[in-house]
């Protein structure tokens, strides 16, 4: 980013400092849900904001029976339906559509790649894309390795210009498969060219974690075990599996959410300050802290993890079906829809501080938040065991969604003749204080990938390290699956065992 800014003296002082080089973007699975809902609308937003390079083209690859005109029409319909910028600007879209192409083909067939090769060479000539390629694999993960291999074998990587490949989670389903995937990818692209996307990292509030921690002098000195009692990270959803039954049966709550998004939140909250904001330094610090997480043995897995599956219940006054009643779910399914884990980070900063991670579907309320619960003040003045004025923890809460913001709970004297202490909340809400529209996570991430800024993407060792922690848990749950899987009624906060996990430590889950 700085390199580009410095090379162009006219960029000094302008808001738009980050400008990608000319490039062609190739979307494998271009007619799929992700491409239609997120990727192409994000590309349109970038074009509308003038953030795409002037020399750009987009090539969709899919198995559908479409020609270029049909593809352009489909993409226009998708942008109309899903873009945050409405109504769409026809001039901008048409100018983008003129540079959109479609290749019908099988992702395993070399002929598809030969056709793609000639299409991209044509793009270089017609649209000045200069050999720079961004390959977005919006496909089933089982195709990642084969597509990467085919790209290499057909001369689509390692050529003139830069070539980058973006892949979506899941990055494997355990350490072994993550390693295998990484090694397949790395045989065809070098690590700097592989962008593993986690759309959570594109959210403004998540990016704000680093600003909160390192741009505010008051937090960093107390961001450690002397002052922090424990940390809770909750990702709660009221939704069920919806149309993702096939995927979810294979994945479950832990693989779907905890191993990736929640571990990224944990890493950002707990990492040491990087020496600067360059991608490698931030990712080094994240890996270090992930490596410091204490592994769980069989005994700890029993005492520090809880899983569950939702049964029929009421959400917002409406009856919600149980998991096993959902379309596409096996009657005897043992897939967890709720997971919570207590973990420790064995480093100087976090020694002895428990981290409680909780995620579930069909819970009472939707919301993602990180709560830093500080130690209580010494029980001398207000907090003695016989005191009539007990005081509570101070809690700093970072709300990731919805209603993004930060709040601090603290104690205050209620007005009156007697001493009565009550908890009050200082609240900052992005939606009230900053009213400008935020870009969608995918806009930010696509732009970063075009620029080559990997800060908000996951490096291979982050993914592997995270699996290393969860592999024994998954193995144990798999063995245990024949025996017992707690259930919880939809619209509650998970199985009673989850409450018990914290009560054993004399703590409670925060109510969202």
């Amino acid at each position, binding site marked *: 980013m700085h390199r580009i800014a410095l090379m162009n003296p006219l960029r000094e*002082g302008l808001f*738009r400092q980050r*400008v990608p*080089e000319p490039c062609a973007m190739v979307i494998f699975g271009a007619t799929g849900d992700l491409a239609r809902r997120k990727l192409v609308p994000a590309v349109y937003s970038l074009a509308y904001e003038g953030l795409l390079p002037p*020399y750009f083209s987009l090539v969709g690859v899919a198995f559908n029976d479409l020609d270029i005109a049909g593809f352009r029409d489909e993409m226009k319909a998708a942008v109309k339906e899903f873009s945050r910028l409405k109504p769409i600007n026809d001039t*901008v879209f048409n100018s983008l559509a003129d540079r959109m192409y479609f290749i019908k083909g099988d992702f395993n067939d070399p002929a598809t790649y030969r056709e793609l090769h000639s299409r991209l060479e044509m793009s270089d000539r017609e649209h000045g894309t*200069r050999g720079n390629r961004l390959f977005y694999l919006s496909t089933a993960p089982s195709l990642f390795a084969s597509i990467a291999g085919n790209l290499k074998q057909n001369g689509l990587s390692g050529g003139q210009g830069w070539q980058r490949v973006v892949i979506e989670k899941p990055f494997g389903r355990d350490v072994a498969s993550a390693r295998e995937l990484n090694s397949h990818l790395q045989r065809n692209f070098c690590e700097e060219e592989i962008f593993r996307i986690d759309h959570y990292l594109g959210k403004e509030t998540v990016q704000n974690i680093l600003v909160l921690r390192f741009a505010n002098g008051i937090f960093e000195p107390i961001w450690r075990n002397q002052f922090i009692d424990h940390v809770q990270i909750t990702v709660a959803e009221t939704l069920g599996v919806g149309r993702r039954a096939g995927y979810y049966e294979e994945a479950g709550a832990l693989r779907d959410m905890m191993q990736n998004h929640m571990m990224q939140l944990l890493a950002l909250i707990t990492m040491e300050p990087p020496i600067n904001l360059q991608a490698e330094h931030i990712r080094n610090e994240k890996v270090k802290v992930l490596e410091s997480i204490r592994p769980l043995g069989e005994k700890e897995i029993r005492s520090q993890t809880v899983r569950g599956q939702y049964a029929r219940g009421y959400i917002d006054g409406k009856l919600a079906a149980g998991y096993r009643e959902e379309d596409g779910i096996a009657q005897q399914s043992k897939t967890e829809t709720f997971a919570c884990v207590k973990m420790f980070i064995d480093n100087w900063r976090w020694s002895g501080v428990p981290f409680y991670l909780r995620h579930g579907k069909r819970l009472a309320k939707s919301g993602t938040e990180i709560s830093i619960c500080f130690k209580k003040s010494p029980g001398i003045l207000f907090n003695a065991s016989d005191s009539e004025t007990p005081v509570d923890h101070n809690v700093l809460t970072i709300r990731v969604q919805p209603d993004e913001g930060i709040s601090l709970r603290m104690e205050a004297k209620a007005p009156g003749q007697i001493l009565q202490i009550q908890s009050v909340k200082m609240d900052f809400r992005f*939606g009230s*204080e900053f009213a400008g529209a935020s870009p969608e996570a995918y806009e930010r991430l696509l732009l970063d990938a075009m620029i080559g800024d990997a800060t908000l993407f996951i490096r291979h060792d982050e993914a592997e390290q995270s699996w290393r922690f969860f592999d024994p848990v998954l193995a144990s749950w798999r063995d245990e699956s024949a025996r017992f899987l707690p259930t919880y009624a939809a619209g509650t906060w998970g199985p009673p065992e989850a409450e018990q996990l914290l009560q054993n430590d004399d703590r409670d889950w925060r109510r969202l």
Partner: protein
Amino acid sequence: MSNSEVISHTASSERTIDTAVSHACLSNFIVFTEDPDDEAFINETIPQYVIKHPCRVILIFARPRQSESKLEQSIHSHNYRGLSGRSATCDQITLRASGSGVKETASAVQSLLVPDLPINLWWRGMFLNQMPLVDQMLTFADRFIYDGTHWTNLHYTVRQVSDCIERYQSKVGFTNFNWARLRPWRDCTADFFDLGLFPEDVWKINRVRIEFMSLPGNEEGFQYRSLLYLSWLAVQLEWTPVRGMPGTDRAQIEFTNKLGEVVDAELILVPQSNGAGQSLQKVVLGIESATRKQEFIIEREHKGRMMILSCCDEKGPTELRKVPHSDSTVADLLYRELGRRVRNRVFEKTFKMAANLLQMV
């Protein structure tokens, strides 16, 4: 109403508001005007601005020529629904000052400020008329916003403003809307010279042609905006002005670049195309040598509200892209400019260069 009453009113209004409404405030925003005809415009603009940037607004409606000396205060709240759908509110305090009461407004304002938050001062109209009051306000303001579009007698005015900026720039950030409105033009100009396009050519530019339109009677102001654009190029590309040929319809300035080569620039007033065209219409940056001719063109297309970027060489023109462009509202400009916390050094250098170039045209 006294200041203390105003403050207690503010506090009590927060308390009685429904708990679902949050009070939002990111800065203090002081607006000063002495033009009675300006009130309607300000009253229309402020709500648009506070929705984007919640702040405590302190409006000063000054009537210095009235004989009666008065300073009255009133308060009301702006309620709006933020992006999250939640209701939020922020305060507006209005001071009406007349006669010698106008001189007291700086001290009245100070006790109404929300502590610890940035203080932005937007001066409507020509501030040189009220320099003693401006001097008082600039002792506590962090940002000073003004609009040079409608200035007259530019040779004198720009020099005075330049002196003022020089005096305060170490602690106050200055923003001129005449400059802020050039942002889309600067963005588009920079687009040509990013990595992967024509990064080397930026240093080879030796022809600049800027075409602008003016509303009748305001030719001087719009020529000045074009001059600001040219000054920006000159500062960023390290051109030294050599000589100028004045003229309202067509002015020419000769520079030398850092290699000592000549750069010719011209500012051309073009006839109105739609009766309301104003500001820059077309910029052509050219490279002309014995071996090469290349032009980088930015053009404003009114019908589609687009900025069109194109290149032209011996082979002919190539359109690079179209970017939507509509004239920014004042609320948009305020939001964008006040979002910047650091001093705008590019503007400061440009303004100084423009003051020099003005002497040539």
